């Protein structure tokens, strides 16, 4: 870079003139830096927000624009837009501006940035895993007053579902519109052909392990008994809950004994080392979407999958003729229920200025029978009990849709576990994946990885 510097540096007169100029330049730079740091302080203050003042429930008119965001691909967008059309027919003065984002992870990236600037869409699609982080940071508006005043009617929703929408402070931040759960999904055709006994929901974890080890020898070569899911958070929930423990305490820290987790990962390691599960490398490279998983491709007989994706996972299997899928609950044991209720729902952003319309939209989406029929439980089983019953009655018999709706209905009625997710829950999922990876690739012992998991999680969640 010497070539770029001025050539007149050698001239003595130029040097004194230069030093005077440089002093001036220094002063100018200093002033700029000072201004910048002052501006910096101001800029830093732009981040985050304080708690908004509690506003009285406005019984205002339902008109004007609101923004509404959701995740999901073509089919879901089509159904969502159909419901939006119905709403706008009912309330012609209101206008819904849809802001779809396709991919689930991309959706949360965008929403986080918008929340950081307090510029979220008026009604964002929400989920229990993320609810705490937005609620405790005051990015969402409490909804209790709207429920009290009747602007949002939750009377048709089972209480256990509504409670899942409460934040740490007891206030309601999300109205649940779709119930989902994680559970076992397995290929009954393969299981029957291998002569395996039927899977029962009250089987203990030891019995399940023996069932899988048994399957390993009876399945054709190239087909694994189970996918390797030691990094799966929903199975961990089931393990902890069915052993009678609670996952997180009120401060968001892990609340169960480390030994329980050691036992959990050892349960998987036994299966993996015996060859009953896919290899660790296969686990690593497995894509996360429905059409490329080992269960869908007929490479594994048994897996954990959310119930509402039964139809989607069945389609490629039907196309390849490799079997029919069946749902089975996580172990429901005397000590605790392994089935966990996971809800999707709608919230109102703290920066929303058109509360009446936002409330009306949430109310419509949740309760309107025509809307529910058009949406047909695309993002979780519809929460209003009467609407769910109607959809079950209206589904084609023996269809995957009917199977999954019935499964959800039974699950909700059987007192599922509800988890108090901490803020920054995504960090838990990440830590689980990282540390189990070390275990599965035998880079660290189970005990060391469990220690690492606990310390990493407790450092981040709250």
């Amino acid at each position, binding site marked *: 870079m010497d070539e770029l510097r001025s050539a007149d540096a050698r001239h003595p007169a130029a040097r004194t003139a230069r030093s005077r100029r440089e002093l001036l330049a220094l002063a100018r730079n200093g002033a700029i830096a000072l201004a910048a740091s002052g501006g*910096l302080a101001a800029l830093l203050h732009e981040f985050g927000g304080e708690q908004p003042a509690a506003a009285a429930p406005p019984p205002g008119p339902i008109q004007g624009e609101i923004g509404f965001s959701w995740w999901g691909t073509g089919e879901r967008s089509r159904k969502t837009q159909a419901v939006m059309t119905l709403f706008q027919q009912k309330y012609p003065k209101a206008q819904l501006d849809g802001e779809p984002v396709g991919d689930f992870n991309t959706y949360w*990236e965008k929403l986080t940035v918008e929340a950081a600037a307090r510029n979220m869409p008026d009604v964002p699609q929400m989920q229990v895993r993320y609810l705490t982080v937005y609620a405790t940071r005051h990015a969402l508006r409490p909804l209790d007053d709207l429920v009290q005043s009747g602007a949002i009617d939750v009377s048709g929703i089972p209480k256990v579902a509504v409670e899942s929408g409460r934040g740490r402070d007891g206030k309601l931040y999300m109205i649940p519109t779709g119930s989902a759960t994680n559970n076992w999904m397995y290929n009954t055709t393969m299981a029957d052909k291998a002569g395996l006994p039927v899977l029962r929901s009250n089987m203990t974890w030891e019995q399940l392990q023996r069932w899988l080890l048994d399957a390993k020898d009876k399945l054709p070569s190239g087909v694994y008994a189970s996918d390797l899911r030691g990094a799966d958070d929903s199975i961990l929930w089931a393990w902890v809950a069915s052993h009678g423990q609670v996952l997180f305490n009120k401060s968001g820290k892990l609340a169960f004994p480390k030994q329980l987790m050691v036992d959990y990962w050892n349960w998987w390691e036994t299966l993996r080392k015996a060859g009953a599960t896919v290899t660790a490398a296969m686990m690593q490279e497995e*894509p996360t979407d429905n059409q490329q998983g080992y269960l869908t491709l007929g490479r594994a007989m048994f897996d954990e999958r959310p119930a509402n994706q039964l139809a989607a996972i069945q389609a490629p299997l039907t196309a390849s003729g490799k079997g029919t899928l069946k749902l089975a609950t996580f172990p429901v044991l005397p000590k605790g229920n392994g089935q966990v209720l996971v809800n999707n729902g709608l919230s109102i952003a703290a920066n929303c200025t058109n509360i009446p319309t936002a409330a009306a939209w949430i109310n419509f989406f949740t309760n309107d029978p025509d809307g529910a029929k058009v949406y047909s439980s695309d993002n979780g089983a519809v929460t209003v009990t009467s609407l769910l019953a109607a959809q079950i009655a209206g589904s084609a018999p023996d269809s995957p849709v009917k199977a999954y709706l019935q499964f959800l209905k039974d699950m909700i009625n059987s007192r599922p576990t509800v988890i108090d997710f901490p803020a920054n829950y995504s960090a838990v999922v990440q830590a689980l994946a990282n540390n189990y990876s070390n275990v599965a690739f035998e880079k660290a012992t189970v005990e060391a990885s469990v220690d690492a998991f606990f310390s990493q999680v407790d450092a981040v969640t709250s």
Partner: protein
Amino acid sequence: MGSVGPGRRGRARLGRRDDRVAYLFLAPWLLGLVGITIGPLLASLGLSFTHYDLLSTPRWTGLANYHRIASGDPAFGQSLSVTVLYVAASVPAVLVISLALALLLNRGLRGLTLYRGLFYLPSLLGGSVAIAVLWRQVFGIDGMLNHILALVHIAGQSWIGSPGTALYTLVALNVWQFGAAMIIFLAGLRQIPQDLYEAAAVDGARMWRQFWYITLPMLSPVIFFNAVLGLIRAFQVFTPAYVISNGNGGPAGSMLLYALYLYQQGFVNYDMGYAAAMAWVLVVIIAALTGMAFFSARFWVHYGDTT
């Protein structure tokens, strides 16, 4: 050639400072720097001294983030060593291959435009999610590479899923997208005066000597550019690692590139202060290496404007 200049103000003087004209030419960039770039840049520096969870106001914590980096966050060390390995493997490979292809496609063949476009196609896909699917089709357990190996009776494995090989699939991806560097080399080759080659041919110089004594020196500013920018970009690579490892940094952290770990800390762990500190540590590292590159340029880069 304009013999009547636009008056004394517009006339340039050889070897003297041209502040006013220079700042005229720099005006758009300066405006962008002050108006758009500097603010967020300084904000990120400021954030590195805070605890910022994205949704609350940042809380001043002084040097805590930097202290955490220095006092041995094991994942930090891992991400740094993985990245250094990635840079060392991919940057030279891209340079060599893109230069070789540029030479092959420079002149003297029919259909050069078509060839250039086709070799450039992989770069056009950018960092899309489709890349992850495609890469799995080649390097996955059921991928093309294993099929080819099976033909010669070598057992395949999951190249993406195994800790020993996963990173090299990323290196392969970077090399696969050599098209951009190749285009830059082609542009550089175009700038070399043809009569230099003709004169050399008259003197009896064969291809290799022409390459070594004409092409390389005349191309050296562009080689320097591709090397430095390749280095900077390789240190910052994010999307391929993210999509191919499903966001988790690969088998036992073997694909945990620096920018991926930074992203995890910022957006998954909601610890943007730490991520900002990591970003500025990276700037220091890259700046040091770039400075060394500029220093070395004295010895091998031949600019047309120095005699």
